[in-house]
C-alpha cells in the first residue's frame, strides 16, 4: 500500500483481499445451492442483501422455515455493527456531495471498511472518493460473481469446508487486524493490545448468554467505551 488515492490504486489495493471474497462467496453459493436456492436467487441476494454473514443466516433460517419478520430482524441485528463502520468511514467524506456519500455507503462492507482504515495509515489520514469507490465496486463484483459461481458449482462440490474456503475471511481479518495494530499511530500500542485482549475476554464471556447475531456488536461497543475511557482519562 502507498499514499496514492486514485481509482486505479483503489483497485490495486483491493486485489489482495479479493481472494477472501471469492473463497467465502463460493462457500455461500454452494451452501445456497444445497438449500435449494436457484442461481438467480443466490445472485440477487449477493447483489441486494450484500452481506456475507447475513446471507448465511438467511439461508439457514429459510431452511428452518423461520417467519419472515424474524429473518429480517436477525439480519438487522447482524447488520447494526455496520452503523459503526459506516460512521467511522463517513467522517472522511464530509466534503463530498450527498449523492456520493450515499453511493459510498451503499457498497461499503466490513472488508472495504477495514481496508480504508489500513489505508489511512499511509495517507496522513486522508481517503478519496475514487479510491473507496474502486475498492467498493471491485469487492461488490467479486462477491456477486463468486456467489453465483458457487451456486452453479454446487452440484459438483458438496462440502466446501473440505477446502477450508470458509476460513479465507477469518484469515483476512487476522491480517487486517495485524496491519491495523502496527499501522495505527493514533492509539498507543499498549492500549491497542489491551483492547484486543478485552475483546477476547468479552467474546468468550459473551458467548455464554449473548445470541451470536448480536455478539460482535455488543462486544465492539463495550470495548470502544472502555478504550475511549482509558484514553480520555490518560489525557486529563
Amino acid at each position: 500500500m502507498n499514499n496514492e488515492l486514485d481509482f486505479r490504486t483503489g483497485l490495486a489495493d483491493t486485489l489482495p483481499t479479493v481472494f477472501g471474497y471469492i473463497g467465502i462467496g463460493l462457500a455461500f453459493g454452494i451452501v445456497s445451492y444445497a438449500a435449494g436456492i436457484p442461481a438467480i436467487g443466490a445472485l440477487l441476494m449477493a447483489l441486494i442483501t450484500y452481506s456475507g454473514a447475513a446471507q448465511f443466516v438467511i439461508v439457514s433460517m429459510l431452511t428452518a422455515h423461520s417467519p419472515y419478520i424474524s429473518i429480517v430482524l436477525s439480519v438487522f441485528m447482524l447488520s447494526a455493527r455496520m452503523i459503526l463502520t459506516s460512521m467511522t468511514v463517513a467522517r472522511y467524506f464530509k466534503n463530498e456531495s450527498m449523492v456520493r456519500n450515499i453511493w459510498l455507503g451503499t457498497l461499503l462492507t466490513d472488508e472495504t471498511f477495514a481496508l480504508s482504515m489500513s489505508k489511512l495509515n499511509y495517507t496522513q489520514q486522508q481517503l478519496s472518493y475514487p479510491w473507496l469507490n474502486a475498492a467498493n465496486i471491485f469487492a461488490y463484483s467479486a462477491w456477486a460473481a463468486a456467489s453465483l459461481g458457487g451456486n452453479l458449482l454446487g452440484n459438483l462440490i458438496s462440502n466446501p469446508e473440505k477446502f477450508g474456503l470458509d476460513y479465507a475471511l477469518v484469515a483476512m481479518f487476522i491480517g487486517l487486524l495485524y496491519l491495523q495494530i502496527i499501522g495505527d499511530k493514533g492509539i498507543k500500542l499498549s492500549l491497542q493490545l489491551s483492547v484486543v485482549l478485552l475483546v477476547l475476554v468479552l467474546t468468550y464471556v459473551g458467548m455464554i448468554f449473548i445470541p451470536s447475531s448480536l455478539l460482535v456488536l455488543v462486544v465492539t461497543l463495550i470495548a470502544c467505551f472502555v478504550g475511549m475511557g482509558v484514553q480520555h482519562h490518560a489525557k486529563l
Partner: protein
Amino acid sequence: MPSFNYLLLVILGTGLVTWLCRVLPFVILKKFNMPKLLQEFLSFVPVAIMAALVFDNMFTQHLGHLPEPNVPNILAALPSVLAAIITRSLLVIAIVGVATLALIRFLM
C-alpha cells in the same frame, strides 16, 4: 425451500435493512458535526471490530454454557498470524490460513 416470490421478498426486506445500516450514518454525518467524544469512541472501532470478528470464529457457541474452543480454527490462526508478521500481504495470509485449515480438516 419456499417459493421464489417469498425468497424475493426476503431478499428485498433484508436488503433494505442492510442498506439503511450502511447509508444512514453517511447521510446524518453529512448534515451534522460529530462530537469530539464520539470521534474518540469511533477511533477504537477498527481494532475492536476486527478483533471481535476474529475471536468470534475461534469458539463455538453453546448458549447457557461456556463456549467450546474451535481447535482447527485456532490452529489455523497461528500460521496466519506468522504470515501476517512476515509478509504483511493479505493475499498470502488468506492462502496460508485456508491451506492450513484444509490440511487440518484432511488430517482430522
